[in-house]
Each structure stands twice: as C-alpha cells, then as structure tokens.
C-alpha cells in the first residue's frame, strides 16, 4: 500500500552543519496492516512521514501510495491519506466540532455526510462531553483525539500517525490504541511512528526499526525477537562499576558455556548485557561470580525485547541513542523546514 524507495533528505547547509535526516530509506507497508516505525528521537521518522504526506519533498527517492506517485500527483495522495501530526495544531478559538466541519469542507464532503460523519467520530472517540468547547481549553489527550478524528473524517485508506500517544493519559492512549486496531481490522492501512517499544510491540503487525535515517531491521515483532534467540541478562556487580572491573567480569563471563554477546554498557554504569541460552546458565554464572569473589548488585533476566533487537543492530539501547542524537540535531533548521 505504501512504498518508500531510496529516500534521502538532508537538512541545513550553508550556515550550519548539514544533517542527513534520511539516508537511502526504503520501506514497504502491506495493505491492511498496522505498521510500526520504531526509532529514537531524531532517527528520521517524522521526516519520512512528512515526505509520505506530501508536506516535504525528498532530495532523492520515490514515494507511492496505493500505486499513486506522491511526488507527481500529491493531491491524489492527499485524498487517500489521513495524517495525524506530532505537534497537534488546532485553532484555539474554534470549537472541536467547528474544526471538524472545517476539515470536512477542505476534503469536499457533502453537507449531510459531514454532519453524520462528525457525529460518528465524536461518539467513537468519546468526545461528546467537550466537543463544543473551544479547542484552547482542551488537554493533550483531548487534542490528540480530536486530531485523530480530523484525520479519519474523510475515511482515508491509509492513516499516518506521528507519535500518536506521546505524553498522553492512560485513558486517551487506550482509546487511541483501540481505534487503531479497529481501523486495521476493518481494512485501513495504519502506519504509526513511535519511540515507545511497548507500543509498537503491542500494536504493530510489522515494524521497521529506523536509526540514522535508514531501516536497520524489519519484520514482525515475534520474528525479530525470535531471531535473536536466548534470554537477555543484565548484570551489575556494583551499582557504579568501572571499566577495569567490567572487563574482568566480561572475561569471566565469556569463558562460561552458553553465554554469548557480552557487551559492556558504559552509559549504564558499566553494567553488562549478555545473552544466555537457558536459565540453567544463570545459576552457573552466579556460582562462578561467587567463586571469583565478585558481588552481584543486580541481575535481571528477560525474554528478548524490541530494545534487544535495536541493541543488537546498533550496539546501544534506544534510550541511549536518544540522548546521543539530541545533541546533533538542528531543531531550528528542522522547524524552519517544517513551517511551510
């Protein structure tokens, strides 16, 4: 349904160090699926979605939605798409209902359909209580629900959401998750970006992990996690260890049978991430550490998660990646580009 091919986009230039937001990104979203785009802040998710929604032109690459070339026929694609942006832009003076009516007119809906459809969505997203109040008084969750309604108004075949649940209360998040699943079940293709692992894990049929403007892993959540194999263990011998001690422990662990991929995680006080083949190995580890007179401050064991998929592909966890990316983005330039 959605085909992004070899997209590249660079921000900045003359005055500031350019940032390669997208670097040969390719993505294929099957029709009728709920597709997740997972990656740290600054990975290029928003840029990719803005290009898909015809708000931004790529430097290179192709975009197709339902076989329509978005660069050649942007208006046709706009008809097919509903877009729920990250920064919810609403008119504070209008009421929610007036905003939906405005949106309906911009999609050329007939008057009767406009009223019926607005009423439907107000009920679906549980907005009756406040829809006639001015948007300026809405909470973040209300705004996001209103924006989702605006994106769904014209019954799009593809719904694109950029970080739809960031900073939302639990009730609004549950409502939005439920609506997205219903949409998918009834045939709408849903593409959402998120930097919440559990969101993508819980919702998405398929996902792509994006880092540095390119896709580094793609598949169903189960397949991605399954491919890693084994259990994840995080070990700390002390709350704050040092490099020397960490490498000593690492050598010891690497000598154990059934242990692989021992990684020292500096960002988390020199803790150690490793993969064990089964739970028995963990017991053996404990014995060995005790014999070497190394304390165990914390030891956590878990099934592989999407974060492990990310760690495996990039050598860092998602939250570490967000911190490192934060420093090299030029938000001013991005904002300028996003302000049309």
């Amino acid at each position: 349904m959605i085909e992004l091919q070899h997209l590249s986009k660079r921000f900045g230039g003359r005055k500031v160090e350019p940032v390669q937001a997208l670097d040969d990104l390719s993505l294929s979203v099957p029709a009728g699926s709920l597709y997740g785009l997972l990656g740290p802040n600054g990975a290029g998710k928003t840029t990719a979605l803005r290009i898909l929604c015809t708000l931004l032109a790529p430097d290179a690459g192709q975009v197709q939605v339902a076989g329509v070339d978005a660069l050649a026929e942007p208006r046709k694609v706009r008809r097919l798409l509903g877009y729920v942006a990250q920064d919810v832009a609403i008119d504070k003076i209008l009421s929610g209902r007036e905003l939906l009516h405005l949106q309906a007119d911009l999609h050329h809906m007939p008057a009767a359909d406009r009223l019926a459809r607005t009423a439907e969505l107000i009920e679906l997203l549980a907005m009756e209580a406040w829809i006639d109040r001015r948007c300026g008084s809405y909470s973040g969750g209300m705004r996001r629900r209103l924006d989702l309604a605006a994106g769904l108004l014209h019954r799009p075949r593809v719904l694109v959401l950029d970080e739809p649940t960031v900073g939302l209360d639990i009730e609004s998040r549950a409502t939005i998750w439920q609506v997205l699943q219903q949409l998918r079940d009834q045939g709408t293709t849903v593409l959402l970006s998120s930097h919440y692992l559990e969101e993508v894990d819980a919702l998405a049929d398929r996902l792509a992990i994006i880092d540095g403007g390119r896709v580094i892993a793609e598949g169903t959540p189960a397949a991605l996690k399954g491919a890693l194999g084994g259990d994840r263990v995080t070990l700390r011998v002390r709350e704050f260890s040092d490099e020397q001690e960490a490498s000593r422990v690492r050598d010891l662990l690497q000598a154990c049978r059934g242990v692989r991929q021992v990684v020292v995680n500096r960002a988390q006080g020199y803790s150690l991430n490793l993969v064990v083949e089964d739970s028995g190995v963990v017991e053996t580890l404990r014995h060995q550490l005790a014999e070497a007179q190394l304390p165990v401050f914390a030891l956590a064991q878990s099934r592989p998660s999407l974060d492990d998929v990310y760690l495996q592909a990039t050598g860092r966890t998602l939250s570490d990646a967000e911190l490192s990316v934060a420093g090299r983005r030029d938000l001013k330039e991005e904002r300028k580009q996003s302000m049309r």
Partner: protein
Amino acid sequence: MTSASPSLAPIPSASTEPSAFAEISQETLALTRRLFVQLARRPSTLVAGVLQPLIWLVLFGALFANAPEGLLPGGISYGRFLGAGVIVFTAFSAALNAGLPVMFDREFGFLNRLLVAPLRSRSSIVFASVLYITSLSLVQSLAIMATAALLGYGWPGGAGLLLVLVTLLLLVFAVTALSLGLAFALPGHIELIAVIFVANLPLLFASTALAPISFMPPWLGWLAALNPLTFAIEPIRAAYAGSFRLTDVVLVAPYGSLNAATCLAILAGLAAGLFLLIRPMLDRKLT
C-alpha cells in the same frame, strides 16, 4: 465506544471529480467562515479597525480645518479631500496585515492541516483572506463615510458607492496577495511585522491621501504618482466630488493625466500580477 462501527471502513475514492468551481468555493467559504468566527469571538480587531480611521479623520480634519479657502484644487474643504485618503489607507493597512494570521498558522503548524488536505487549489487560502479583508474594509469604509457625512464632508451617492466598492476590492486583492506572499517568503512573524511597519506609513505619506500632487516637490510628486494607493484614492475622491464617469480625468501626474478607468485598470493589473507572483510560492514545496 462501538465495537463494530462500519464507519471506520475506508471508502474507495470517487471516480468522477466534482467541478473545480464547486470545490474551490467550498474550501474558500470554509476558510472564510473560520476567519469570521475568529473575528466574532475576538472582536477587538474590528473595534480598533473602525475607531482608528475615525480618529484619523477627526484629528487630521481638525488639523487643517483653518487652511485658507481655495487652497486645494477645486476649492473643496480639507475634510472632504481627506475622506478618500482615509478610506483607502484603512483598507490598505488591513490588507497589508492579512498575511499575519497566515504567518501564525504557519508558525503554529495549522497551515500543515490545510496543506495536507486535498485542496483543489491553494489559491483558496488567498481568496478566503481577500473575502474577509474586503468585507472588513467595507464595514470600516461605511463607518468612515458615515462619519465624514456627519462632519459635513459630503456623501458619494449610489453610483459613487459602487465605484468605492470596486476600487477597494481591487486594492485589497493586490495588497492581500502581496502580504500573503510575504507571509510565505519571510522566516517568521517578527520579520513580517517589520516589513509591514516599514511599508505602511511611507506609502501613506508618498501618496495623495493627505495632500495633492500640486503641493509636493517634484521627486515626491513622482513617487506619489507611481504609488498604487494614489490610483485607488483619486477615483474615490472624484466620486466624492460628484464625478462618476470612468472617462473623467482624476489624476494629473507628472507623466500625464489619467482617467478613472485607467486607474482601475492599473490596480487590476497589479492585483493579477501579484496573484500570479505568489501562486508558485503556495505550491513551492511540491509540484
């Protein structure tokens, strides 16, 4: 929350496209309605917009009330002379500010909502602003004309009123297009306000709003005779003087005499030119 609402199912896009006119009118009306709802709920701009020109009219009229008889061409009183200038300047200022709401929409991200919608033509954004500003200008102009009449400065009459309307429409269209173009071209509202600030008063003083060309040194006379405001002021002033024929000479410029029809044609040309100039800016990013 309903569990199996059919409303969520996507629909195939319609095979036949409705007429461009129907779609553009629907978009334009919806966008215009938004501007009027905003005005109704925040009427301070309207109140200030009506009061300000009245203050201009009363103060400037009083300032030159004791000007010697026969000073102005045709021997009219200064108040009568001033009315046309204040009407045009008021409409001009309002139109010059038309870009501001669009700039704020851009900065707050609301414009993206419009741009991601399948607008038949992004010119609808321009049309909506023009409709809104023109209506506002008409209300202001009527208030000015009524006040001017009360002050004894005369009334243009039915045909004159029509001429006022047409002239204002052309001027407002041209200046709104310019302002919207700036709203898309400049980086932010600070820069836009700076440009408005720099353009506003000099264009007033370098026009025939406050004094006729015959009062001006030659260089200023030339500027005034090339200033678009002058081409709007003079036909309206002529209407106030009782001349409604388009062939009547209304402006005696250093380069020759112009009749009302020529002035209006120049304004129309300017409006069309500026509109064509900003069109590509609206579609700049894609297409």
